[in-house]
């Protein structure tokens, strides 16, 4: 039970930089999720905290202790791997008790702690089984059990759910969250699945190419992405991104959404957009709302009609696909009605829901 602190952490493989000058403090009991595409350095960061990967520069503290030079065994962290890495030659209870046996804890105490873990995870009937006799979800549970018997300072999860099928993944996700609430331990969780990140995290870190792009609560990064990368990475379907030209006429700043669609720049963004020639407009699918008729408030709402390319009914909603600037745009129609391909549909967007990004720097305006 401790906070974890990274100071200026760097990892290089030869000339390739995997993690660059990372500064991060993870307070006690926080559920932190590192998310990003493959090769962004998230797993490397986790492995450096565990001590499985040497660090090229910077410092790591667990609790108040600097652990740079410490072996994994002396760091008191537990790791859960993607492929579970259960010891195949040991039964479930031997797997669970292994770390305690190595630590020379007396057998009665091992038994008590294993029993405790088995109860928490509902593995009572499987104690004598070997890993090969378990299903994927059960193996996952044993792997977590093995991590919790030690009562470590921090849990490290390395994409623990990606080997499970979709249904089981959702179920285990809930269990991990419950487990965290029960155990009240610092958790650092690596995933490339943004849904996992959103649902589990107290705080999300979005990484790319070894850098932290944004840190914040799930809602915060969803509502206020700092750049185009975060905007498109978080949220499903990904945020619609349109590169638009800015035109000025009669002291009005207009944004060219498509060849024949010109819209007003929102008032609060005028100052920021005035000197720019191009801007990136980001709109979430649920904010492009299909409507029957246009309202009169021209200032705070954008309107346009467009012929649609495709409609995918999902039951509770229908996803509607059309093109702006030759790029595919997705809109969500709640309370769906049957839609024909090629049908002209009216859309409206509330301007306060729109994200603007600088065309050159891709950063939020």
């Amino acid at each position, binding site marked *: 039970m401790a906070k974890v602190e990274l100071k200026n952490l760097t990892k290089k493989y030869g000339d390739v930089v995997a993690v660059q000058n990372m500064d991060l403090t993870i307070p006690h009991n926080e559920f932190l999720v590192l998310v990003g595409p493959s090769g962004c350095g998230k797993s490397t960061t986790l492995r450096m905290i*565990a*001590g499985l990967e040497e660090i090229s520069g910077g410092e790591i503290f667990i609790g108040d202790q600097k652990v740079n030079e410490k072996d994994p065994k002396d760091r008191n962290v537990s790791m859960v791997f993607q492929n579970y890495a259960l010891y195949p*030659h040991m039964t479930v209870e031997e797997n669970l008790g292994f770390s305690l046996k*190595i630590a020379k804890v007396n057998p009665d105490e091992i038994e008590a702690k294993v029993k405790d873990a088995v109860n928490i995870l509902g593995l009572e009937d499987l104690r004598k089984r070997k890993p090969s006799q378990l299903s994927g979800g059960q193996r996952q549970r044993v792997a977590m059990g093995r991590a919790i018997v030690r009562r470590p300072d921090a849990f490290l999860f390395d994409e623990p759910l990606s080997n499970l099928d979709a249904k089981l993944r959702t179920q285990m996700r809930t269990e991990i969250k419950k487990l965290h609430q029960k155990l009240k331990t610092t958790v650092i969780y690596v995933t490339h699945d943004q849904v996992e990140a959103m649902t589990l995290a107290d705080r999300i870190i979005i990484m790319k190419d070894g850098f932290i792009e944004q840190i914040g609560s799930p809602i915060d990064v969803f509502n206020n992405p700092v750049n185009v990368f975060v905007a498109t990475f978080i949220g499903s379907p990904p945020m619609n991104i349109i590169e638009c030209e800015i035109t000025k006429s009669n002291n009005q700043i207009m944004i060219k959404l498509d060849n024949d669609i010109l819209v007003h720049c929102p008032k609060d963004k005028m100052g920021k957009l005035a000197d720019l020639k191009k801007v990136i407009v980001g709109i979430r699918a649920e904010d492009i709302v299909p409507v029957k008729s246009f309202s009169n408030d021209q200032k705070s709402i954008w309107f346009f009609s467009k012929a649609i390319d495709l409609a995918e009914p999902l039951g509770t909603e229908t996803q509607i696909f059309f093109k702006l600037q030759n790029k595919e745009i997705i809109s969500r129609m709640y309370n769906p009605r049957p839609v024909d391909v090629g049908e002209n549909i009216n859309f409206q967007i509330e301007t306060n829901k729109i994200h603007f990004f600088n065309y050159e720097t891709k950063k939020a305006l």
Partner: protein
Amino acid sequence: MKQIKKIGFWLLVLFLLILICLPGIWIFVSAFRPNPEILAKPANWIPDRWTLHQFTQMFSINGYVSVPAFKYLMNSVIISSVSTVIAITIGMMGGYAFARFNFKGKNKIFLSLMLARAVPGISLSLPLFILFAKLGIINTSFGVILVYVAMNVPFTIWLTDGFFRQIPKEMSEVARTDGCTRFQAFWNVELPLAGPGIGAAAIFAFLLSWNEYALASIITRTVHSKTLPIGMMDYLDEFTINWAGMCAIAVVMIIPALILTFIVQKHLVSGLTFGGVKG
């Protein structure tokens, strides 16, 4: 029609089987019959008289020693076992290092180890003889063991490397976060998992040493260090060859090898394929 094809197939299998086993059967049969009968023409396939004469003489059961087979057997057992234990210990650690660690010149060292195996041992016999003579270890068990260890280490490294590669590296990583030192992780987790493979490699090494003739014939000179294959030559006299004795000592040699092969045949096959297919 299908039936006939099936019978034909099995007849062919039987024929090939007999063809392959014939020398072995001949040795076995000949070990238990008197010498003149072996030389009989036309060949006498089923002995008229079975005898343990060669074995009783060999092991001096009735006081008369033809060839000190027991001493040779002991030499063979000691030399093969000791060289196997040493070779597998070194080979296992080497294989683990090649499978798990990255170090400078790793591939070159591995390649040179494999190339060392490509050199025919006999081509080194003269330098080896001179070197050993100068060191004073000619005609000693120690000398033979040394040669066999050198012969087996590259092989055991190659085999165990393949086996350790089969074990996901997360196994040792999770053991290390579970509180193991690197060695404890190796000892408690990776070694038990690679166990069958290491066993297969060990038995392979043992059989290579057990059957080796060429180099032993150069290094060993007397009863003091001769192994069974070399001891067999004792039945070769200036004017006569004791075929029955030779066959008898061959049987003594074959039986332990056969038993070991049966024990590990399953692991042997997987051992070889594992070693060959490296991820």
